[in-house]
């Protein structure tokens, strides 16, 4: 069993598991942090960005004025942003049989994998994962295609040149494999390969393994996966949460008794407690609005935003924010808000019960009804006519490199009354803000990551007790910035097996058993004999028939009845005589009784020697040795066949025959 690790990102995993002749890809997360190296894509012409000076190396030898721009001491690529893809050279992606998706954040690289690689398999995902994943992809494609950039910068990627570049650009890895965003057509094609599954639904893969998604409690339709054969069980834990937010709670008990547990998607903010952050979010928001400023919340259009809106719904009154407008701007805003309300069966119990009242599960419906929350596909159109300040705007993309958020950054960045509150944990807020410097606007970082923290995960692992744990290497040591926090790492016995990008792990367990079916008529013919109370054994002679990874024992075909022939039988045609198999022996030879029997048969001079495995009996007069061991008995008796036979029969007396 092998695990190929195609992504080093702990929360955006992409691993391939080879298990019992199947090749299963677990998630295909897209590392979008690469876009932080690019200049933002403004929706309207930005004089500030267009006036940024080009970059020339200090000694003037390298001139990349066209490709690289200098902003407040940092260099950015002036081109359509590009993403860092999962590794594609480690194994032939066309051999992948299935892709299992755990949540909508972990499927953003799907088009890169399913298109143009020869992939012919199936993708399994839950319905909300597919639908919301589609929305997120659509949103990114829309953001990118809305502001096309003709220029595509490539010179800076030259290894020689890249080495000379400053700052983060110099250290960016695999820049040649970075790719521009996919098109809507590729998205549609990729998503057409998705087959929907429900929680705990069992899907057979070629009869060899069974995969089944379990609720992971992290987002709508998010799942962990169980991959099992008859005798082995692998659990794949991706983004999971034990907090009571909107999704169905995590199914922990089904993870028990795993041979291997692949653990990914722990919280990226182990020191930031989501509750505390939510509180921080609300108080900073209220503080800004009271002071007459605007609040900008760069966020994804699905996920935490539902919780933020729910929290604000309760907070608005107590903070006297009743009259402040809340805007949600995204090409998929409407769909996201409405989809969330219809996936009732994927919600936590509390919200599910509301459906029967009948009441919308999420309170944002009421915010929309009372006109406190308004949503628009973009800043163009209706929004501009209804826009009132001070207000709160939720919009993407959280990287601040594309989407409507870029516009608000340009609009509000100059005033210290305004505040930008980061809630998504995926991007470093300082890096996100870098191309907007100098910035007067206040910045508040309240990353809300509801995924498991180290404390919760150790408790979980104690409970489900997997034999082996495999995890990204980041989880096996404390975070770099807080090396003293030994509580922020996984400490397990045996220690977890770490992986990094491009690792290939041999998973440390051997397959020892295989299930074999026996046909009824063959079973009928067996003659079981009881070897100890409750345990019976029978010998079976049969033919193994293997097909689709299923093994069946069939009766040995009888020789076809000889057709009456007038020809003389030919000796050669005789079927070989099947000899009745010798009986199998079981049991142990009791030493004392055996010696007594020997004595009865006149063998008196016996020297008994104790060995590690049993005893050696030296029949001195006969110059014969009898080795009695746990798994075998040997009679060493040269040139005295009658004695050997006698001794053999004596030994056999003490053993059971089948």
């Amino acid at each position, binding site marked *: 069993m092998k695990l190929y690790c195609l992504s080093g990102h702990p929360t955006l995993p992409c691993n391939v598991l080879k298990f019992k002749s199947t090749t299963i890809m677990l998630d295909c997360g897209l590392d979008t942090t690469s876009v932080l190296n690019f200049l933002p894509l403004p929706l309207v012409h930005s004089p500030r960005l267009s006036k940024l000076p080009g970059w020339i190396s200090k000694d003037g030898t390298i001139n990349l004025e066209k490709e690289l721009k200098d902003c407040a001491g940092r260099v950015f690529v002036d081109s359509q942003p590009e993403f860092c893809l999962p590794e594609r050279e480690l194994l032939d992606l066309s051999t992948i049989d299935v892709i299992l998706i755990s949540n909508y954040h972990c499927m953003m690289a799907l088009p890169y994998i399913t298109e143009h690689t020869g992939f012919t398999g199936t993708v399994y995902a839950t319905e909300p994962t597919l639908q919301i994943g589609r929305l997120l992809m659509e949103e990114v494609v829309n953001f990118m295609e809305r502001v096309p950039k003709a220029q595509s910068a490539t010179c800076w990627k030259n290894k020689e040149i890249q080495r000379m570049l400053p700052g983060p650009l110099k250290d960016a890895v695999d820049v040649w494999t970075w790719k521009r965003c996919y098109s809507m057509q590729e998205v549609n094609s990729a998503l057409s390969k998705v087959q929907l599954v429900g929680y705990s639904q069992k899907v057979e893969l070629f009869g060899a393994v069974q995969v089944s998604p379990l609720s992971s409690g992290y987002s709508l339709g998010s799942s962990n996966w169980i991959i099992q054969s008859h005798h082995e069980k692998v659990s794949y834990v991706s983004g999971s949460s034990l907090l009571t937010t909107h999704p169905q709670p995590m199914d922990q008990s089904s993870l028990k008794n795993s041979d291997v547990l692949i653990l990914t998607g722990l919280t990226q903010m182990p020191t930031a407690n989501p509750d505390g*952050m939510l509180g921080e979010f*609300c108080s900073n928001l*209220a*503080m800004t609005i009271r002071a007459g400023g605007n609040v900008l919340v760069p966020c994804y259009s699905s996920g935490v935003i539902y919780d933020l809106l729910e929290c604000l719904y309760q907070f608005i009154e*107590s903070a*006297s924010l009743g009259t402040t407008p809340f805007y949600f701007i995204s090409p998929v805003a409407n769909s996201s808000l409405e989809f969330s309300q219809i996936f009732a069966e994927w919600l936590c119990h509390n919200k599910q019960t509301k459906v029967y009242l009948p009441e919308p599960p999420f309170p944002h419906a009421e915010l929309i009804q009372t006109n406190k929350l308004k949503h628009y596909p973009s800043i163009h159109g209706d929004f501009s006519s209804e826009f009132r300040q001070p207000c709160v705007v939720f919009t993407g993309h959280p990287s601040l490199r594309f989407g409507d958020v870029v516009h608000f950054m340009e609009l509000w960045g100059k005033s210290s009354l305004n505040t930008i509150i980061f809630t998504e944990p995926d991007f470093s807020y300082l890096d996100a803000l870098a191309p907007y410097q100098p910035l007067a606007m206040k910045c508040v970082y309240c990353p809300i990551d509801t995924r498991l923290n180290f404390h919760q995960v150790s408790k979980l692992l104690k409970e489900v007790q997997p034999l082996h744990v495999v995890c990204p290497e980041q989880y096996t040591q404390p975070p770099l910035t807080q*090396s*003293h926090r030994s509580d922020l790492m996984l400490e397990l016995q045996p220690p977890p097996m770490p992986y990094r990008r491009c690792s290939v792990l041999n998973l440390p367990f051997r397959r020892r058993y295989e299930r074999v079916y026996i046909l009824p008529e063959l079973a009928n013919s067996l003659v079981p004999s009881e070897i100890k109370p409750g345990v019976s054994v029978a010998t079976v002679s049969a033919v193994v028939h293997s097909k689709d990874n299923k093994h069946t024992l069939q009766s040995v075909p009888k020789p076809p009845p000889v057709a009456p022939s007038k020809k003389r039988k030919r000796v050669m045609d005789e079927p070989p005589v099947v000899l009745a198999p010798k009986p199998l022996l079981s049991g142990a030879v009791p030493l004392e009784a055996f010696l007594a029997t020997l004595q009865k048969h006149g063998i008196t001079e016996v020297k008994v020697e104790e060995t590690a495995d049993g005893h050696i009996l030296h029949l001195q007069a006969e110059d014969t040795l009898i080795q009695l061991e746990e798994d075998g008995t040997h009679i060493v008796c040269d040139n005295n066949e009658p004695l050997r036979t006698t001794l053999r029969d004596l030994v056999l007396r003490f053993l059971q025959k089948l």
Partner: protein
Amino acid sequence: MDRECVSLLPRVCEVLAASGSSLPDDTSLEKLLDWFTGLTKAGTSLLESCPCLLEFISTVVHNTALDPSILSFTLRLTGFVAVTEVAFKVLQESSVLDLVFNLQHWQEAGLWEDPCIRIGWIQGLRTMMQHPKALSFFVQADFLQPLLQLQTDKSLFVASAANQMLAHVLLSCQSVSSVGSNDVDEEGEDVGRSGGSIADLEYSAVTVETNQDYAAVVTAISECLKKSLVPRENTQLHQSLQILKLLALLLAQTRPPLWEKLLQMVADSVDELLVAGYSQLILPLMDVILAAYSSCDVNRRAPDQRVSRLLSFMLNIRKPADLIQAAAAFLRRGLHDLVHTAQSARVLLLPLDIITGLNLLTTTDEQRFLMMEQLKNKTSCISLICVCLTNTPQMTLMAADCLPCPPVLIVTAVLSLLKLCSGDSSSPSSSSSGCREVSRNVIGSSKVQKCALDALTALSGSPGVEVKLAEVFTLLVQCLDNPDSDPTVLQKSFQALVQWMSVCSDLSSITDQHRQDLLQVVRKRSCDIRWEVRDSTVEFLGRLAGVRVIQTTAEEASDASVAVLGGCCFTTPLLRAALQDTESYVRASAISALAQTLAASWQQGAALTQEQTEIVNQLLEVLSWDTEGFARRAVVRYFIAWLSSMSSHSCVQSPASSSLLMPSVRSVLSRGSADLDWEVKVHTLELAELLLDEAFSGQRGYTKGNPTQTHPYAVIPNTLHTRTHNEEDVVGVLNSLVQWGVVSALLSGLVDCDRPVALRACRLLITLREVVCPLSLGALDATAAMATVARVTCELPGCGWAREIRKMLVMKAKDANAEGGVSGGEVVNCDDCGEAGQEAASVGGQTPCVSVCEVLRSLDLDERLDVLTRSSDHVHNSPLSLLQDILTASSARSQPDTQQEVIADCY
């Protein structure tokens, strides 16, 4: 004793002796006993005043078929009856006593199994044992053994009572035998301590023979202590525990000969127990040792060698958890023992030393190692640290030579612990891996944080810690800013901040950056999503305004709110925003905080600002419209604060400020006295009282506050008599009181259905009457003397409280007429205040006016005060009512057909 009660008692006894099941409720017997206790304490001889009790006891004690609760009651009652020697003799002669306390009697009846009989037996004996005769009875009946057995009874109450009883017996024996042996010098010193309970022992009655008996009792008890102290096996720990409790009681109260003897007897067993090291017994053991130790301390004897040795042993136990407990127990006693105090301090500081790595003290490696191992376990780490922190403030108050390090270092350690809790990396302990393992246990523990903050708050008073102010300030602001801090941690951080600023008072070390950080965090927390946090923030703003500090730049005292937050311009807008909060507690706190913030400007007589007018309007709105009592109460208190600050600084009273204050006070009085919440009304009356004080201060006959509460011999300040009685003055003042609405508020309070309101109003009205128209002047004199004052009238509108007052006046007038006194017309000044008059008045839309003086004189205020002073259930709770209840219940039970059972709602 009440004659009526005496007459009812025989019948009650009959009822009880017949059957106890017909009692009105299960507390009746306890109430009866309470009554008897009161009577006995008052010196009444029960047998003399209620001879029926003797018969009752002898009847009941023979009837073992009765309800055990009645039997238990009888046992206890017998104790009360036999408390005097005379009665004891009577009981003994009628051979009742022997039977009542005869164990066999109860055992044979199968009643001894019932714990209520056992406890009745113990308590009866205990009550009786106040004279040597009772003691002899106890000794001769050989009750000691059963009592010792009861000490480990399975019922905790019985066991505890037996323990108390044993101690009582031993102490009684001690007093008697010490007299017998003419140990006079001890007696004089200890009469007070050996318990008033045996003060009336007749020492002379003790014979040599009985003296020997007592000695035998003492020996028997101490033998038992010695024998049972060390448990034979783990299951007997309970017995050891009981013995230790008894021992602690005894060692604290006995005097030298006995004390010595006891100690001598048990010393070896205690030693053995110490060596065995049962963790559950550590605290009781420490209690014993400390009881012995403090008994030396109190008597100014040199500490006994054995006790000192035991104590040293305790403070050197190898189990860290036990050691910490022992040290904490020692420190809590506050004994004058430098050596052990210093040792305890070292023990208690060790966990803090290890976890912070600050080298607070020098200890042996072994101790350090053992403690470190213990600290590696998360649960015990947190509890040890908390014990340690709880004791740190006390340690820093100790003499400097007891402390292993200066208090400043302890503050540093607490600060560094707080940093660890928030996961801060800058702790010096991060170097060693053992410490890292320990410090990991406290990361994120809000329990430790709370304890540490409490300790930090208390440490603010320690000598020489002022230098730490800036550091403390920084850390507390960090705590306040931390998104993960829970509401209690935030509250405690705010409290600590106020405390440190109020103690240090010199804020020169606080930089502008500190101030900015605090401003930012206060602003954020005032918008917090949790109301508790908003509440603590608002409270903090108020408290800060009350702290006087010195800023060295100007060497000028100001309040801390001005010094660190920039004063009103920052706080007032925040507080005004908090007035709109959805949570009433926050609104209430905001109002109080506003009062504290503005107090300075009131006192300085600063000119009125637009903002103040707005605030007052906002507050009046809260008083009228707020749905929650807390906020409305706070509004009234706001005006009380304002008014009292104005009157105490009347010399600088700003006319501008009064021009806003007085009209608002009028509204507050009228709205407050019509409120639905009784506390708002009481506060409103307090405001009215302030106005009375203000109006009549210096007026003859006016006593500030409650007239009935003044001590009869109190020295009345001369100033009260300086101003001559000037009728014109009184008229003017009374007129203004009427105009402000004080009189209406008081009258409406008087007829309020809430007793505290009515009581307070009544007292104030009496005060007013004494100044304006004292009753000491006869009716005719009064009319003549106060002709002008009587002209002051107030309105009595036709609704609510005024209707009540009118009714009372009419009744009074009718009574006066009936007595053939002066005509009723003069009572009420309006044309005719009969029913017809009232209607006419209300139909005509006029509000009738009455003379204030006449109202005050006619309302029978003193009688009313009398009624109001008694608690509302005084009738219900009287012994008479209890006896009647018992009788009624029994008659109801005996005639079930004729009377329906009363079903009462019991909540």
